[in-house]
């Protein structure tokens, strides 16, 4: 294995500002052999990246590391110019709130909060996100309503408790929450897998158009049919050298 000479799989223009840079990242869950070895991953600002691979290839672990919720044993994660590993835990949580939006596969929402309150959550934990949400001159409530409408959540649903929304509606609310206040990076972990094909395509259209130009998107999915919509596509097998049979 040759981890000192990382394989560059970054096709982004070299002059673009980087949203994310991963270098020499190695990780093992406590008491287990290393499951992740990512020599390099760069995502430029405004880039859209489709990451695919079978289950067990380390996708979720990688996302945890990128979000700064888990810390790698070796290597660096640089988000918007800041090395996450160099931050103490509480600053890392604050940094995540400021710069990362996350959409999960399902059960994204706090069930007892309304759709609007769910969207506003990042503004409650991050002053930066709140300020940026207000930058259009609107209040954060108006910005939440605007995003929800943009993502196709009708106004009469905004005050409904999240638990009463359909799965499709919940995913749209989750996307609006991840996008509010223009984070640097939007991480989406199989956000369409609970949706039917038509809903999945609509959802993706909306997220991609809302992301365009403002934040980088890293989406994980096993559904290769979606790959063509992204700026580029990366296979976990190419990224993670710990996967058996991975390309060296």
């Amino acid at each position: 294995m040759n981890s000192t000479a990382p394989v560059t799989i970054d096709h982004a223009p070299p002059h673009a500002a980087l949203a994310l840079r991963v270098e020499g990242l190695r990780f093992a869950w406590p008491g287990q052999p290393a499951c992740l070895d990512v020599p390099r991953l760069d995502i430029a600002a405004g880039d859209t990246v489709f990451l695919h691979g079978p289950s067990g290839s380390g996708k979720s672990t990688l996302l945890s590391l990128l979000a700064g919720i888990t810390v790698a044993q070796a290597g660096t994660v640089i988000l918007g110019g800041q090395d996450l590993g160099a931050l103490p835990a509480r600053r890392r949580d604050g940094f995540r709130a400021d710069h990362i939006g996350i959409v999960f596969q399902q059960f994204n929402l706090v069930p007892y909060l309304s759709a609007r309150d769910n969207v506003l959550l990042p503004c409650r934990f991050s002053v930066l996100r709140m300020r940026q949400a207000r930058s259009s001159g609107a209040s954060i409530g108006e910005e939440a309503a605007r995003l929800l409408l943009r993502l196709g959540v009708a106004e009469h649903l905004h005050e409904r408790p999240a638990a009463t929304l359909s799965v499709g509606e919940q995913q749209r609310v989750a996307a609006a929450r991840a996008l509010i206040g223009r984070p640097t990076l939007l991480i989406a972990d199989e956000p369409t897998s609970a949706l039917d094909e038509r809903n999945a395509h609509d959802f993706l259209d909306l997220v991609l158009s809302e992301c365009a130009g403002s934040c980088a998107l890293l989406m994980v999915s096993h559904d290769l049919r979606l790959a063509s919509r992204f700026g580029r596509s990366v296979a976990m097998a190419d990224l993670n050298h710990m996967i058996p049979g991975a390309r060296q």
Partner: protein
Amino acid sequence: MTLLILACKSAWSRRGALSLAIVSIMLSVALLLTVERLRHAAHDSFAASLSGTDLVVGPRDHPLRLLLHAVFHIGTPDTGMSWDSAQRIAADPAVAWTIPLSLGDSHRGFPVVATSRAFFAHYRYGRAQPLEFAVGADTGGLFRVVLGAEVARRLGYRTGDQLALSHGGADADHHPGHGAEHGDKPFTVAGVLAPTGTPVDRALYIGLHAMEAIHLDWHGGAPIPGLALSGADLRKFDLEPKQISAVMVGLKQRAAVLRMQRNLNTGPGEALTAVIPAVALGQLWDLTGSAERVLDAISALVLAVALCGLAAAVLAGLNERRRELAILRAVGARPLHIFLLLVCEGAGLTLAGAAGGFILVQLAAVGLGPWALAHWGLAFDMARPGVSELSLLAAVASAGLVASVIPGWRAYRLSLGDGLLPRI
């Protein structure tokens, strides 16, 4: 602020499960407060029964027994004190007034107290309040009786009614074979006292001469056969009492009380016991103190069980909430936030339970207070929760805070270990 709103909304969404925990805290706090209030009410009502009386003097006996008998009409002493001693005390230059008391007879379960008119003039209760007549007055005739408020209410007597006293203590009524009646010498109700919330309400008052008179033709606790004196005959006899039960003494100078007490206890002549009421009551609280501590311990245990129930309820909900907590982490909440969220919830529930328990006791006291005063002579002071109650509530709140740290800590550990996706 955000955390508080989140905690409230989260708790509200699980109100079904949590309301049980609140109710159990509420009930245990109510129990704790009730024990505390009953204790205070009991202490206060005992202490309020006698005011301004410096000494209670009676035959040589245990001070507490003497006080309980003379003031609270509890128990029956073996002997009395001589009338001569009582008069000697009354004549002492340091003494302002004396109230002689002679007990032993009863009327339908209520004790009969034979006394002088000094009783109505000098007896004080509560905050030095004098006795007042609700109806009638102390007319002073031989076979006149004044009723305590409760006696009149329970037995339905009015002024002018006639009643017969029973020989012997209050329980004579329940043994018709033993209870001999002074039926040949009926008493006329001269007046009814206003309610005082003290044992005064539960007794009948006659003159010392009347007490002598009804026992003239008696010997050894039974009527002397063939000797029945009419009211007119009685006036020919010397109706000065030979023996009485006790004397209440008011001094001119309060400062003289200790010297006076020592003189009476150790002086020559008849063996007497002089009691300072507050000191004897203190002995009573010492006696009942261990029982009170057991009650306290039981209420504290009940509260501990309720708080464990609270911690268990919050902990049990935690597993279903791992997803929710992971979402909060993903949008930027720190593990400390998660910890505080859970602690806020537990503390909030405890506060709600404590407030509910307090309101429950307050409502019960307002609703049942008059009843408790009428039936047990316990006066609940509703206006203000005492300092001891406030510190109890503060102790409950801090115990709740400590109990909430357990689920808070568990959530903290979970949120650190779960990462973005809890493996449920």
